[in-house]
């Protein structure tokens, strides 16, 4: 394929991707704000339910609380994870690499529900134990991909950077991080997507999220609540995933 054809193909794909992302975002915002408009639909679908629309809180409040949980926990996961990944790939921290990797892997094997159960007696109910569980849970993909991403920088590139007189910081900021960025972002993407799904269980310990109608529906045998919560969580995950895909593409070289 010629360069021009390849370029136009890539542009077309990007344009289609942009359109999909825009439409899904619109759908997500629309459903969040206007779920109550769908009450007749849910009433028709679930004629046996006396309350076919979750109404103890607005879906906007639930959505914002959910995004808040994910944002705070992901920020913690990313800053701790990238810092740990950087540390164990520097000469000074290289010997800690196996330890950090296995610690992160252990964090991943704990079911988030178990982490919640441990965190509640220590941190009480609500927001804090959920953040602890989510942050731990999202750590591994970030650490793993930071290490892997820095590992993809060719030795010759690093040697050239050193040979041309860059300092260790300059090599990190100007060469290693930009080249590792695509893989690191892929790790953040996995971490955030996992957390969007996992944040729902925060509602079992009293943290407000899109899991609240889900749990209420499961407990009260109300399938309509479950669908309403799950629909919004699913859409949020898909929109976020597509947005990350676009971000990753910016850091593709050659």
């Amino acid at each position: 394929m010629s360069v021009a054809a390849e370029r136009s193909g890539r542009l077309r794909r990007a344009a289609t991707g942009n359109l999909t992302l825009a439409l899904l975002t619109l759908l997500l915002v629309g459903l969040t704000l206007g779920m109550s408009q769908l009450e007749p639909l849910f009433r028709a679908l679930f004629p046996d339910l006396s309350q076919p629309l979750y109404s103890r809180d607005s879906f906007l409040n639930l959505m914002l609380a959910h995004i808040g949980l994910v944002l705070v926990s992901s920020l913690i996961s990313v800053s701790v994870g990238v810092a740990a990944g950087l540390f164990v790939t520097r000469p000074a921290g290289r010997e800690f690499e196996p330890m950090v990797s296995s610690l992160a892997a252990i964090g991943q094997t704990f079911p988030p529900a178990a982490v919640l159960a441990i965190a509640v007696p220590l941190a009480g109910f609500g927001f804090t134990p959920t953040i602890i569980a989510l942050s731990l849970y999202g750590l591994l993909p970030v650490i793993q991909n930071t290490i892997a991403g820095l590992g993809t920088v060719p030795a010759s590139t690093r040697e050239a950077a050193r040979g041309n007189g860059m300092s260790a910081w300059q090599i990190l900021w100007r060469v290693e991080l930009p080249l590792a960025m695509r893989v690191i972002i892929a790790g953040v993407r996995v971490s955030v997507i996992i957390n969007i799904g996992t944040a729902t269980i925060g509602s079992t310990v009293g943290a407000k999220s899109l899991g609240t109608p889900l749990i209420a529906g499961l407990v009260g045998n109300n399938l309509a609540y479950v669908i309403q919560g799950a629909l919004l969580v699913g859409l949020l995950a898909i929109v976020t995933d597509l947005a990350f895909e676009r971000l990753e593409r910016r850091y593709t070289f050659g």
Partner: protein
Amino acid sequence: MIELQGLTKTYAGKRVVDDVSLTLQSGEFGVLIGPSGCGKSTTLKMINRLIPLSEGRILINGDDVTQLPVEQLRRRIGYAIQSTGLFPHWSVARNVATVPQLLKWPKARIDDRVDELMTLFQLDPAEFRDKYPHQLSGGQAQRVGVARALAADPEVLLMDEPFGAVDPLTRETLQAEMRRVHAQTGKTIVFVTHDMDEALALATRIALLNGGRLVQYERPIEMLVDPADDFVREFIGQADLGLKLLSRRFVHQYQRRARLAPETGLERLDEHAWLVDAEGRPSALAGARLDDADAITRVKPEWIATPEMSMKEALSRMVWYRVTALPVVDRDGRLIAEVGMPGVMGIEGDGAAREAAS
């Protein structure tokens, strides 16, 4: 000037570079050569301290390299490597500008310097400035790599098998360009290779290493005609020693007066002669074709030699095109002399060429 004094590198008790001392004068093209594991790359990398030295001293223009801050030292020394090491996320222009940017040159000066270097390496700035490394051919990428090494006008240029990964044809082109760039810039160059032909094509001094020790440090011709020991003799290779010598000799050392053909009586010529056109360019050759000595043959562009061409190449063309003499032309393409098979043999016998070449 680069001085290595008793340079030694020890890895786990093993001396991989063992007491190497040599001096390379300013403007010389020094080639470090030897079999794999002889310590040539290690020696090179100790000069810009990518590898710390164990014992001895390295002086660049009198400055001990270990006394300078390491980044500052490396910005004074150009460095080009085999796999180019170009930064894949930077454009060609930004790659070339690496060291000037580290030295915080003003933008206008950097832009001028980048264009100047790209022109020196025959890469059209308008076309190549904004390309990325993955859009370049191997030869182009290697040119950018060397241009980057020269960007901040370093005192010394270190090259670690820079042409080892390109195809043979491109390699010869790059070698010719390197000779030209060396002649134009007068840089002091230290160049590592394992290829004797490459060393002979480029070096003004060859340092042959074996097992970490310096075996012989000599000008190319002297190394060929007077190898220090059996190892050197073996490494140079005996089979085509004659051809190797010819690769260090040039047409201008062998050329002789070209005989112009008379207006009439071509068929009665006892020796070959050249026909020229109105501008004095060689147009045809009477005689001197091996397959049909009496024929008059149009001169092909591939036959034409220049005074700067190596005798190895001239001889190769004679053999390939089955002709016993090549026309030698000046810059404007006018016939000034010829170079022929008998010439190659004749001068070789009395040693005149050896003197002339050295």
